[in-house]
C-alpha cells in the first residue's frame, strides 16, 4: 500500500543536541529506498511563505498567499512510499534524518 510521508521542520526543537544514530544522510536514504522500490516519488518543496492557497466559497474562487492554516510545523518536503503496512513504513521513516531534526507524518493512501 502507498503512504504519503510529510516531512516537516519543528521550529520549537533545540537542534544542538541531535543524535543521528540510526538515521542515514538524506541522499543515502533516497538512494536506498529508490533502489528498493519503496520510494516512488518525493521532493523538497518551497517553504510556507511561498505557498498559495486555493479555495472556492459560494462559487467564488479565492486565491491567497501563504499556507491554509497557521501551523507550528512547516512542511518542507514529501515522499510517496510503497510499503506492506504501517510497521514497514515506520521502519523506513525512522531512518530519515528529519526524524531527528523535524517530524515525519505517515498518511496511508485511501484505496
Amino acid at each position, binding site marked *: *500500500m502507498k503512504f504519503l510521508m510529510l516531512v516537516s521542520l519543528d521550529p520549537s526543537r533545540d537542534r544542538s543536541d541531535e543524535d543521528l544514530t540510526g538515521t542515514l544522510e538524506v541522499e543515502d536514504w533516497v538512494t536506498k529506498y529508490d533502489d528498493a522500490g519503496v520510494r516512488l516519488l518525493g521532493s523538497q518543496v518551497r517553504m510556507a511563505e511561498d505557498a498559495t492557497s486555493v479555495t472556492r466559497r459560494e462559487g467564488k474562487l479565492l486565491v491567497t498567499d501563504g499556507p491554509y492554516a497557521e501551523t507550528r510545523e512547516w512542511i518542507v518536503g514529501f515522499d510517496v512510499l510503497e510499503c*506492506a*503496512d*504501517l*510497521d514497514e513504513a515506520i521502519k523506513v521513516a525512522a531512518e530519515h534524518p528529519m526524524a531527528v531534526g523535524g517530524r515525519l507524518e505517515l498518511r496511508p493512501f485511501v484505496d
Partner: protein
Amino acid sequence: MGDDVRETLAAAMAAERLRIVASLIRTTRDWDLAEDAVADAAERALLTWPRDGVPRNPAAWLTTTAQRRALDVIRRASTERVKLEALGAQQELDEQGGDQPVDHGVLTDDRLRLVFTCCHPALAMEARVALTLKVVAGLSTGEVARMFLVPEPTMGQRLLRAKKRIANAAIPYKVPEAADLPERVDGVLAVVYLVFTQGYAGGAVPELAEEAIRLGRLLRDLMPEEDEVTGLLALMLAHHARRDARLVDGELVTLEHQDRTRWDRAAVDEALSLSMPPGRVPGPYRLQAELALTHLRATDAADTDWRRIVRLYDRLLHVQPSPVVSLNRAIAVGMAESPAVGLLALADLAHHPALQGLHLLPAARADLLARAGRDAEAAAELDRALTLAPTEQERRQLARRRAELAGP
C-alpha cells in the same frame, strides 16, 4: 437448564474465546464481526446443547459455529467487494479445516497477533488499554467503562475509534519482527502494568488488578521465553498477594508492619515459582519482581535479606535510573548497614529536583532517624512529610507514625 451445561460452556469459552476471535479477525479483517460471531456461537450453544447434548469437543463446536456465523454475515452483506472478501475468508477457513479439532500450534500465533495489534504504539495509550481489556481479556464494553469510570457510550466510541484507526492507519495484524520484539514486548507489558496499577490507584478497582494478572498469565503462556513477561507476572502477583495486609480497615500498612499471615498464600507461591532461569540478563520488571520476591521470602522485616535488596536496587538503577529508586535504595542501605549510612545516602538526594515537594524524602529520613533513636528529628521530618502527603490515606499513615514517636 442444567448448570453443568452452563459450566461446560463457560469453561470452553474461557479457554477458546480468544483463539477464535483472533483467528476470525485474521481471516475476516473485521473486529466487530469476529467478536459478534463468537458471542453468537455461545448463545447458540445455550439453546442447542441442553436439547441435543453437549458436543464431544465443545471447543471445536464453538470454533466451527462462530466461523460459519461470520461467513453467513459476510455472504448476506450486499456489496460485491465484501463477497469477494468472503470468498477469501472461506478459502482460508477451508484450508484450516473448520470441522477439525482446534489446532493450537498454529493458532497460538493469532492470539499473539491480536495482543501486539491491540498494544501497537501507533494507538493512543487509552485506546490500547481499552482494546486489550475488551478484545483480549474479553470484558464487555460496559465492564470496561465501569472500571475506568466513564459512561458506556464514551467507552463504546473509544473502542470504535480504535478499531477504525487500526484499519485506516494500516496497523498490521502480525507479530513484530525479531529485531523489534523487545521494544514491542515492553509496549505490551506497559499496557498490562498500567491496568494493574490502576487497580491500586486512588479510586482502586480491584477487578483491574485481577484482569492484569490474568493477562499476565496469558502473555506468559504465549511468550514463555521472554523473561520480562514472567517478571511482570511475578511482580504483579507479589504485590497482589499483600493486598489484604496492606490495607486494613481503610488504613495503609507499611510492609514492615504488615501481618504476614494475611498475605495470599496461593499468590505468594505462584509468584515465588516464577523465578528467573539461569544465564539471563534481568530487565527492569524482573529486577522489580526479585525485589518483591525477596520481601515475600522473609518472615519479617528483620529476617529480610537487605544486602540482596541493595544489590538489586543497584542493578535496577543501572537499567532504569530514577530518583525514587535511588531513594528506596538509600532506605535499604539503612537497613543493610546502619541508619547513619542510609541517612548519608539520602543526603545525596536532598537536592534532586524530581523529589522536591514530595513527602517521600522527609518520610524516608524520618524512618531512618527513628531507627537511630533520634526521635525529635524524626518527628520534625514527619511534620514536613505530613504537609506534603498526596492522599488522605497517606497523611493518616504518617500521622500514626508521628504519634508513635516520643517527640515533642
